[in-house]
């Protein structure tokens, strides 16, 4: 009897391992191994025309002694934080409307799908479409001048950090709306009725019930937006006229000129930053408990 249960336990364990194997192998081959490789290559010796697997810290020293690259790192952080805050400020009210004020499930779905419609065109077109909007003779400047609000076109609208931020916010705000709206829609309406019945005002209900219960959605949305913005390079190069360089742009340029070791350094730094940001965000809410 005991022996039978032992072999049964062993069989169950073997089955578990078998089921785990594909996932583990996949992660090892396509995540852990490349990451390790990236760290390894970042210590290789890079000459103008060749790269040799002789270990050195030259590339790392070059990265941190160059103001261009350190500035790119700081700019990446600054733009990430700005975009994150703006997507939250625009995304939360939108999600609140969809998740709480629209009680019809069908209308909720329709509105969420509407948010996704811009994704039916390609990424490049969405980004490039901002040029005729923001340009010196673009739509916004023309309208503002016709209305007599400004005399000369605002040049800072395009090919600046501002245009990069506008473009990124437009693309990524939906990733903030989705998870928050999902969490808000899941809140049982009877909780809000109970709070009302207990004498709480609308503001108190928002602060004490809706906001804490939707926080996991905010964190998930923030992780989506952060991971995508930190690795961005296309929006920056298309809307800044190559003036605004992010870590992603550096990787693209360095890989383009076959500077593998240097690209690997930027890659490792970007990975560390992203991991730190995600860890920090997960600290805010215990997602495993809340979802």
């Amino acid at each position, binding site marked *: 009897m005991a022996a039978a249960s032992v072999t049964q336990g062993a069989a169950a364990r073997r089955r578990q391992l078998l089921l785990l194997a594909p996932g583990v192998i996949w992660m090892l081959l396509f995540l852990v191994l490349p990451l390790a490789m990236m760290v390894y290559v970042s210590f290789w010796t890079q000459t103008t025309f060749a790269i040799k697997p002789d270990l050195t810290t030259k590339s790392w020293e070059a990265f941190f002694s160059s103001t261009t690259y350190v500035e790119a790192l700081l700019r990446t952080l600054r733009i990430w934080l700005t975009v994150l805050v703006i997507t939250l400020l625009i995304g939360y009210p939108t999600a609140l409307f969809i998740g709480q004020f629209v009680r019809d499930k069908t209308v909720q779905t329709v509105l969420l799908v509407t948010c996704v419609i811009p994704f039916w065109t390609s990424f490049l077109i969405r980004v490039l479409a901002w040029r005729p909007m923001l340009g010196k003779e673009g739509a916004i400047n023309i309208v503002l001048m016709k209305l007599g609000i400004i005399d000369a076109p605002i040049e800072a609208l395009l090919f600046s950090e501002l245009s990069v931020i506008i473009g990124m916010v437009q693309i990524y705000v939906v990733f903030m709306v989705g998870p928050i709206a999902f969490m808000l829609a899941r809140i*049982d309406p*009877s*909780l809000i*009725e*109970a*709070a*009302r*019945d*207990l*004498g*709480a*005002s609308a503001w*108190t209900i928002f602060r*004490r*019930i809706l906001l*804490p*219960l939707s926080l996991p959605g905010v964190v998930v949305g923030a992780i989506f937006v952060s991971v995508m913005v930190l690795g961005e390079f296309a929006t920056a190069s298309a809307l800044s006229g190559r003036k605004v360089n992010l870590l992603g742009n550096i990787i693209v340029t360095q890989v383009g000129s076959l500077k593998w070791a240097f690209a690997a350094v930027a890659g490792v730094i970007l990975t560390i930053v992203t991991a730190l940001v995600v860890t920090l965000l997960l600290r805010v809410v215990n997602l495993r408990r809340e979802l």
Partner: protein
Amino acid sequence: MMEIGGLSKSYDGRPAIADLDLMVADDEYLTLLGPSGSGKSTLLRLIAGLERPDRGRILLNGEDITHKPAHLRGLGFVQQNYALFPHMTVAQNVGFGLANRLVDPVTDPAELGRRVDAMLDLVGLSGLGGRMVSQISGGQKQRVSLARTLVTEPRICLLDEPLGALDANLRERMTVELRRIRETLGVTFLHVTGNEAEALAMGDRMIVLDGGRAVQVAPPDEVFGRPATARVARFVNAYNLLEGETRDGAFVSGADRLPLPAGVHARAYAVRHDAVEIGDQAPEGWPAIEGRFVTAEFLGSRVLYFFQRRDGGIIEVERHLSQSDPLRFAQGEARVLHWDPAAAHLFGEDGRRVDAAQGGRA
């Protein structure tokens, strides 16, 4: 005291509450019995201010609260699914109303803690204040929900099927608890239920709601003993209800003829399960129906016998074992079911009770 007058509410043209009048006294336990779809939840939501009535008004101690927002009414509403805030502890849930209400909030943490603890004691949850609501059982959630409402000292506490989600054992304990808690606080409970036994057992007074109207408002023994309409007799689940018509001074239902008192015109005839006797022959002048034995249900202190009438309907007979020994019948055995004419309850064309000279056992 709360007075409700001419209250009406329709959904998509279908009336849920139709011209309802009701008087709720201070310090009483009022149960509201209604089948599903009778509008009982709608009535509670109208009183609580979670829905707006189409017509009519609600007066609370003389003040018109018909259009007052829910959070200013000072009424308590214990929801059927408890509606506990999942991100808070038991104590935070109970203290929510006191700490966050717009009118007269309790800001002193010591005072808040003292009142929450006292209420947790009263509902029997001492020491559980620090638990998260996901860590307590269904019965405990019920008590937290009740405590959360009662701690705000509502003038009337509305309970929407408070025992519905509890298992039988727990339900019995809670019925006693609810009455004790209510008596301790002296607050009026308006307890909505679809369970006739619960409504009869708990209420000082009882309201039977049917089709959006209060068809009977009376103490439970009166509702049980003298149902106002044929449908009330059906809801209390203790009557054999026969449909038929009056012909030549007798009630004709299917193949059976039952004598009626002179001058009474009835469309429905009800007799209590425990008023029916089983025999070979009915005494002279007693109503009788022939039935074939189908099955018996042993209920501990009582036995329910099921007989089939000639036209297929079922007659239930209840015999209490403290007064008689259990009877044994063969399957399909024919017996004569009869009862004292005074035990008959008669209902007219509109379903309302028709009182003859003998009037039943009132």
